[in-house]
């Protein structure tokens, strides 16, 4: 049996976190399964727990404008349903969130929880890598912002300190005309990903102006190669079309999946590269 805390507000939560380092629990949809025990018995948490899902001051989604950049700010206790229903949520994130589990789970699970769980198969994480999301972290007397690619360091591992909490996720809202999020799982609802793919890109004056390509569940963290993306900036649609086999070759060296209970390395790699090819063909026909 472990202690549990129910802070009255965020300030209280940060004090409790600093003093006792409890495990934060928002929706509980990952943690209650991880520590599940027999029916009718308590879940077997290994350290104290702090409920945070009720903290109203983090239950928001808002737009912020600064220096010509518009940012979507998703509060730490906004649920996946809140994210999916928000009209400003980028298309790929909306699709990713709606591919997670089923309505009852999405009503309870939070986007922040999905990120802090840091699963390589986290569907929202694949989209958030492509959207250059930034994680807002607070502790008593300080705050910092960390790009999601630096926030997640391995399967289930993040840079979050034991006295810190994630209080929001910031997503810069950028022009993006060709968008794709595809999840491959055993069934449409309630399945964890075998793999997932996100592509976002935009043209300016007939040339690729921005592009992000990310792959979930094919490595210890979501895979994104900014270097390979840079090689595509400035190409026209027809130039990209001619380059597709080379791009697939390049990506076949960075996508190095493993076999596990959900899929095999061979299948994951083949399908990831097929999804990439399909997206690039679609993109090359737009310009």
């Amino acid at each position, binding site marked *: 049996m472990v202690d*549990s805390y129910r802070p009255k507000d965020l300030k209280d939560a940060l004090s409790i976190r600093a003093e006792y380092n409890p495990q934060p*629990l928002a929706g509980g949809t990952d943690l209650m*399964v991880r520590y599940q025990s027999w029916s*009718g018995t308590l*879940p077997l948490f290994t350290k104290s727990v702090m*409920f945070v899902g*009720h903290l109203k001051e983090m239950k928001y989604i808002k737009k912020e404008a600064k220096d010509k950049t518009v940012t979507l700010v998703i509060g730490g206790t906004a649920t996946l349903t809140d994210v999916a229903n928000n009209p400003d949520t980028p298309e790929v994130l909306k699709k990713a969130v709606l591919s997670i589990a089923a309505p009852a789970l999405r009503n309870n699970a939070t986007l922040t929880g999905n990120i802090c769980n840091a699963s390589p198969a986290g569907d929202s994480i694949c989209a958030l890598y492509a959207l250059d999301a930034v994680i807002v972290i607070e502790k008593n007397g300080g705050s910092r912002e960390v790009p999601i690619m630096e926030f997640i360091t391995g399967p289930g591992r993040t840079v979050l300190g034991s006295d810190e909490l994630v209080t929001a996720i910031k997503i810069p809202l950028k022009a993006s005309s060709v968008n794709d999020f595809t999840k491959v799982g055993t069934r449409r609802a309630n399945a964890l990903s075998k793999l997932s793919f996100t592509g976002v890109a935009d043209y300016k004056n007939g040339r690729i102006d921005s592009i992000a390509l990310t792959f979930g569940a094919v490595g210890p963290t979501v895979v994104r190669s900014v270097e390979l993306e840079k090689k595509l900036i400035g190409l026209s649609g027809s130039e990209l079309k001619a380059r597709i086999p080379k791009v697939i070759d390049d990506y076949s060296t960075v996508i190095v999946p493993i076999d596990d209970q959900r899929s095999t390395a061979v299948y994951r790699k083949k399908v990831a590269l097929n999804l990439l090819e399909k997206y690039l063909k679609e993109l090359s026909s737009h310009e």
Partner: protein
Amino acid sequence: MKEIKFILNGKEVSVEADPLKRLLDVLREDEKMTGVKEGCGEGECGACAVLKDGVLVNSCMIPLGAAEGSEIVTPEGIRETDKGKCIIDAFGDAGAVQCGFCTPGMMMATEALLTINNKPNESEIREALSGNLCRCTGYDLIVKGVQIASERGKDLW
């Protein structure tokens, strides 16, 4: 152990329990709301579905402490209402019930769906029930039950 209060089917209740006890166990054992079923115990089957502050959730994944002060509605809380009776009759007439174990959760998912969309099409119904597993019916008869409830209950939701 801690005394935790919440609203259950419209009445305030107070439970003396570990805040990490699953809401599912509190409802079934402390409050004798056995309409809430345990299937998988890990959020995949929807047999334990209840409404929390008006939205559908799986009670097996919610520790009691996270439900403090919330309004919880179980199948017992809707079965005597006009909406509940409408769903029960529609499921019966459609033959949507075979072994019956998934039925309470299916009915909560139906209530949650019709509350936000009282004229759902078939794909919206299937999406709304996607977190509820049934091993008997093959789902078609349950979808039919929801359609009948939606037609008959158009003035209720």
